[in-house]
C-alpha cells in the first residue's frame, strides 16, 4: 500500500513538472500561459480548500473571503504605493488572512455541520458587500486595473515560473501536512470527533488550525492571481467564487489529495472551451455539480481509482 502511494506521488510530481514546466516552451500564445497559470493557482486554492472539506469534513462556503483579501492587498498596495510593493503585499495578504481567519475562525468553529457552512458563507458575503460599497477605498464595482508585477516579474514567462515555484512549494507543504500527525488528527475529526476528544486531542483547536492554514493559502492564491490577470474585481469575494472552488474539489474527488488539482484543470479547460460560447455558464456548472453529487460522488480521480480496483479484483477472481 505504502509502495503504491509512493508511485502515485512520484507520478504526480513528474507529470506536474513535465506538463507545467514545458508549457512556457510550447505555449503558442500568451493566452495559453495565462490559462496554465490559472490552473496552477486555482489548483492550489482547491487543494487548500480540500484540507478543510475533504480532510477535516468542514465544508466552508466562504473561502473566497481570503482569496479576495489576498488579491485586494496586492491591488490596493500597488495602486497606492507603486509596483515595488507587489511582493510585500502578497506577504501582507497572507499575514492578514492568518489574523482574520483566526478571528472569524474562533466564531465559526463554535458550530459544526451545516451551521459552519452557512456562517462561512455569511462572512464571505459580508466581505463582498463591504468591498462592493466602499467605493472610495476599493473602487467598488470597477475593481482595480493595471496591477503589474515589478521588474523582471513583469515578464509573463518569468511570472509564470514564479507562480509555478510557489504553487509547487505550497502543494508540497500541504502534502507534508496531510501526512503529519496534525493531518491524521484532522482525518479522525472528520470521521469521529467524539473519539478524538476521548483520545485527549482538542477538536476545536485543530479545526481552527486547519481553517487558518487553508485560508492563508487562499490568500496566497488571490495575491498571485492579481498578477496574472493584472486586475481585480469584488466578484473575487462573491459566493460563486467559493462555489467554484468547491466544485473543483468535488469534480476531482474530495477523498483524494491531488483530486482537487485535477478538478481545477478540468473546470478551467471546460470554462475555456464552453464558457466563451455561452452565457449560461452557471447552468452548466450546476448540471455538472448535480451529476457529480448524484452519480460520481467520489470525483473523477476517486471513481477511476475505484474502477481500477474493481477491474483488478475481478481479473484476480477469474484467474
Amino acid at each position: 500500500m505504502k509502495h503504491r502511494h509512493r508511485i502515485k506521488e512520484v507520478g504526480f510530481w513528474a507529470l506536474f513538472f513535465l506538463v507545467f514546466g514545458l508549457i512556457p516552451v510550447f505555449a503558442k500564445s500568451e493566452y495559453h500561459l495565462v490559462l496554465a497559470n490559472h490552473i496552477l493557482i486555482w489548483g492550489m486554492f482547491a487543494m487548500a480548500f480540500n484540507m478543510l472539506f475533504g480532510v477535516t469534513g468542514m465544508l466552508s462556503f466562504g473561502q473566497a473571503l481570503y482569496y479576495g483579501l489576498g488579491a485586494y492587498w496586492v491591488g490596493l498596495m500597488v495602486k497606492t504605493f507603486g509596483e515595488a510593493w507587489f511582493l510585500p503585499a502578497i506577504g501582507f495578504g497572507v499575514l492578514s488572512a492568518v489574523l482574520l481567519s483566526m478571528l472569524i475562525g474562533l466564531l465559526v468553529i463554535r458550530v459544526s455541520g451545516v451551521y459552519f457552512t452557512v456562517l462561512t458563507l455569511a462572512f464571505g458575503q459580508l466581505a463582498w458587500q463591504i468591498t462592493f460599497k466602499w467605493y472610495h477605498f476599493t473602487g467598488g464595482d470597477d475593481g482595480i486595473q493595471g496591477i503589474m508585477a515589478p521588474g523582471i516579474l513583469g515578464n509573463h514567462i518569468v511570472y509564470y515560473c514564479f507562480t509555478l515555484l510557489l504553487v509547487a512549494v505550497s502543494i508540497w507543504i500541504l502534502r507534508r501536512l496531510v501526512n503529519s500527525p496534525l493531518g491524521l488528527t484532522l482525518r479522525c475529526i472528520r470521521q469521529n470527533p467524539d473519539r478524538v476528544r476521548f483520545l485527549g486531542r482538542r477538536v476545536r483547536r485543530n479545526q481552527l488550525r486547519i481553517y487558518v492554514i487553508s485560508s492563508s493559502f487562499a490568500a496566497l492564491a488571490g495575491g498571485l492571481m492579481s498578477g496574472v490577470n493584472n486586475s481585480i474585481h469584488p466578484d473575487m469575494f462573491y459566493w460563486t467564487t467559493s462555489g467554484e472552488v468547491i466544485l473543483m474539489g468535488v469534480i476531482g474527488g474530495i477523498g483524494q489529495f491531488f483530486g482537487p488539482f485535477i478538478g481545477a484543470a478540468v473546470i478551467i479547460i471546460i470554462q475555456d472551451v464552453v464558457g466563451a460560447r455561452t452565457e449560461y455558464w452557471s447552468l452548466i456548472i450546476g448540471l455538472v455539480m448535480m451529476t457529480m453529487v448524484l452519480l460520481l460522488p467520489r470525483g473523477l480521480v476517486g471513481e477511476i481509482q475505484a474502477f481500477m480496483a474493481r477491474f483488478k479484483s475481478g481479473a484476480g477472481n477469474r484467474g
Partner: protein
Amino acid sequence: MDLSFFIMQFLSGLTMATLLFLVASGLTLIFGVGKVFNFAHGSFYMIGAYLAYQAVSVWHANFWISVLIAALGAGVFGMFAEATFLRRIYGRAEEGGFQILLTYSFILVIDDLVKLIWGTEYKSLPRPLGFGGAVNIGGLTIPAYNLAIIAIGLVIVILAWLILSRTRSGRVARAAALDREMLGSLGINVPLTMTLVFGIATAMGGFAGALAAPLRSVSPGAGIEVIIDSLIVVVIGGMGNFWGAWLGALILGEVNAFAVSTVPDWASLFNYLVMVLTLIFKPEGLFASREIRKV
C-alpha cells in the same frame, strides 16, 4: 426621532419580517422534519416572484390568484426536486455536505433557467387593486399593501402553528423529525411525508416571493439575497425551531428597517452584525436546544 417616525419604521420592519418569516419558516420546517438543509430555498422564493409576474403581466390574472398560482407552482417544483434528486442522497455517508452541494447546484440551474425564460432585466409588479394607496390611522399614513402583508403573515403564522400542533398531519411531521424509522414501521409513508413537507415549505417560499414582488423588483439572483437573510434568521432563532424563526425574522426585519432609515448605505451590514452577536453570545440560537426536537 418622534413617535410617528418610529411607528412607520416599525411597521415597515414588520412587513419585511413577515416576508422573511415565510421563507425562513419553510427552511426551518424542512430542516426540522427532514434534516435536509435546503440551500436553494431562496430560489423557490424567486420562482414564486417570477410566476406572479408571469400571471399578472402576461396572463392578466387577478393579483391574489397569481399569488396562489406562484405558491402552487413553487410547491410543485419543490416536490419534483425533492422526489427526483434529493431523495437519492438520503442516508449517504456525509449526507450534510452533499445536500448542500446538491441544493447549491439547484441554485445555479434555477438562476439560469429563470434567465432563459424571463431574461435578465428587472421586472416590476404593480400593487394589487385597492391596495395601491395608503391608509390613514390616527394621523399616520401607512401603505395599505404593507398592512395587507402583515395581516396575511399573521394568519399564516397562526394557521401553520395550529396545523403543526393540533392536526394529525402536524403530528406526523413532528414525529418524522424525531424518528423516521419508527414512523415508517407504524405504517406511515415516510418518503411521501417528506415530499409533502418539502412541497409545503417551498410553496411558502414561493408565496413570500409573490407577495414581495410589488415591493421589490424581481431579478435573477434574488434567490441568494433572500437565502442569506433567511439563514441569518434561522441562525438567530435556532435551526429547526418554528418560533425561533418567527423571533429571528422579527429582529432582523426591525433592525433592517431602522438601519435603512438612518444609515441607508450600510444597512445590510447590520444583518451580519446581529448574526455575529448571536454567535458570540448564543451560538445555538436564541431558542436554545442543542438537539432540536421541536418543529
